[in-house]
């Protein structure tokens, strides 16, 4: 007997798999690019966490005209970024710090923005993004817009003052937003037990007067279902909501982290809960997709990443002198006087 499809058609069920494959293929492509010396700065994998981002984003209204829901993703939620319309080639341009990237080489990886498509890239102190999304969704409420926001952050960010201040503000103002805590059990090398005394982040919700729910973050349909229900509640004036995704960060904090503080036996155990493998089996078992259809998806996403990465490699880096541009909307920053052809400080 087949499992319930949560209202998704066959195409939708396969869409989810496509997004999972795209996320993983993009990150695997980045690993290759890094070995080839094309990646500027750190590279962060979401291996084992892909279903959280995909399931959550798929449950929201994704539009391109600035009227849809608003996403704040993280480095380990690239699948959500892609679902909200973030272009694959821009993802590679960002990682390669190209002048053609959305931030023109000023910012790294997934830290980019498109308010028409409805995503705001994070800044590195992730707790801040709770405050930012509180303000974005406050604007939805006071203007009576039928929009909600969703903000991803890690178990570590839950310890920051910004997280508390942003969440408390949102709860009091009944901001229509969903917080998604990606509890992958590690904040760099610090385990969750050293970030909080509670055994589940859902225990924090009552302290703020908001509803919470924990969900298996390796199960894309379970995440989709939880976020869909939360979104209904939030959209109908239910205020702020929090969902905890439980899974495991199977790679180091970044590629430069050998993760030697984690018991390898634990990592191997979590390999058996790989979100792509689990969902692929269900698609076949429930006859939501055929083996051939899945192989096409796998080949297509691999190829899309290859093509986009190749195109991004060929593009130029920004001119160094562009570093002075864009500090203000209306005030020009001077170039260093020592860089002019006839250096003279009085002329700078």
């Amino acid at each position, binding site marked *: 007997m087949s499992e319930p499809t949560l209202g998704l058609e066959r195409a939708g069920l396969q869409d989810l798999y496509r997004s999972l494959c795209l996320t993983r293929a993009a990150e695997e492509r980045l690993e290759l690019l890094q070995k080839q010396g094309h990646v500027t700065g750190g590279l962060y994998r979401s291996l084992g966490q892909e279903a959280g981002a995909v399931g959550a984003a798929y449950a929201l209204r994704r539009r391109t005209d600035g009227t849809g829901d608003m996403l704040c993703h993280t480095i380990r939620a690239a699948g959500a970024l892609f679902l909200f319309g973030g272009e694959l080639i821009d993802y590679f341009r960002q990682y390669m710090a190209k002048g053609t990237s959305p931030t023109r080489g000023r910012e790294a990886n997934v830290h980019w923005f498109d308010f028409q498509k409805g995503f705001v890239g994070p800044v590195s102190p992730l707790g801040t993004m709770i405050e930012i999304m509180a303000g974005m969704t406050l604007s939805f409420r006071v203007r009576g817009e039928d929009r909600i926001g969703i903000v991803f952050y890690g178990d570590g960010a839950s310890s920051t003052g*910004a997280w508390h*201040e942003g969440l408390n503000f949102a709860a009091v103002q009944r901001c229509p937003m969903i917080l998604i805590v990606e509890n992958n059990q590690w904040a760099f090398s610090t385990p969750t037990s050293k970030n909080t005394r509670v055994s589940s982040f859902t225990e924090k919700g009552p302290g703020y007067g908001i509803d919470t729910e924990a969900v298996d973050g390796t199960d894309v349909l379970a995440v989709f279902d939880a976020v869909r229900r939360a979104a209904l509640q939030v959209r109908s004036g239910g205020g702020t909501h929090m969902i905890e995704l439980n899974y495991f960060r199977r790679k180091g904090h970044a590629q430069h982290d050998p993760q030697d503080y984690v018991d390898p036996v634990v990592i191997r155990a979590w390999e058996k809960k790989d979100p792509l493998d689990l969902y692929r089996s269900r698609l076949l078992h429930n006859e939501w997709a055929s083996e051939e259809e899945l192989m096409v998806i796998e080949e297509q996403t691999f190829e899309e990443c290859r093509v986009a990465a190749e195109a991004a490699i060929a593009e130029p880096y920004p001119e160094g002198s562009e570093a002075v541009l864009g500090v203000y909307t209306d005030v020009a920053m001077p170039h260093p006087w020592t860089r002019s052809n006839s250096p003279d400080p009085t002329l700078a």
Partner: protein
Amino acid sequence: MDPETPEHLLKTKRGEPVTMLEAISEALFEEMIRDESVFLMGEDIGVYGGAFKVTRDFLSFFGENRVIDTPIAEGGFTGAAAGAAHMGLRPVVEIQFMDFISPAYDVITNYIATSNYRGAGPQPLVIRGPVGGGNRGGPFHSQNVEMAFFHTPGLKIVYPSTARDAKGLLKASIRDDNPVIFEEHKGLYRAPSLREVLPDDDYVVPLGEARIVREGTDITIVTYGSMVHKSVEAAETMETEDGVSVEIVDLRTLLPLDEDAIVESVKKTNKLLVVHEDTRTGGIAGEIAIRVSEKAFEWLDGPILRVTAIDAPVPYSGSLEDYFLPQTDDVLKAARYLAAY
């Protein structure tokens, strides 16, 4: 039926003089009327009308969607202002005392100030509040915060010294697409000597432009905020008792700094004294001195000197605070030393 404009916000319309505080209230009120996207957030600004009553009666006029009483969490609501600014609103955040801006330092410096540069778009918001000493407020109700932010590219910092400038600069700040930190000296808020009749048109004072308060030929004093008035007192004494002509430049906007105005004045007088109420080390005098060194070294006929508060937390007791703060007599002594140099 629309609520009626509160009487106390119509003084300029009636041609009556206003204090600097009333000028600030009028600026906020008129901007909120002019542009529906302007809204206010802060602690106790609604029902209570703000700790200094800057937003008295705003809540009943504009409603609680545009005058938002917040939790005591400067980081949280300043961050929320940034999110709202992304969505096309123009938030004006009140920090009850600017000493309490420090919890928002993270979001201001890491997020708000970098937003446009990062490609996340402009951050049209104003963070305003009372600063400054002399009111026996002690260490946590008296600080000047400009130099905590002066080093952050992407921010603008405004610090008016008169009612006219306060109103015009605040309007310009609200209309500016960049984030502005707007400092209001609480000792000037209700100072009777600063009461003036303002133009009743919709004037603005552009950011980034200093004002020559007083023309002179022998010494330049570059200053801002409350020290403008102490410098003027010293200059008047110099004029009558010493026959020395002092030019006073009121910076008005600290960031971006109006370097041209400073350099031009120094080239005229050849001597520079910087006066600020903020503490000494890392004060703006240092930046001004190096700019003059870069641009007008050959014009200098004496050392660049400064009069500032001492490097200490702001003390509570009157005798201590008066010693801590720069006084007119300090300005006078420094100016006389420079004149004789």
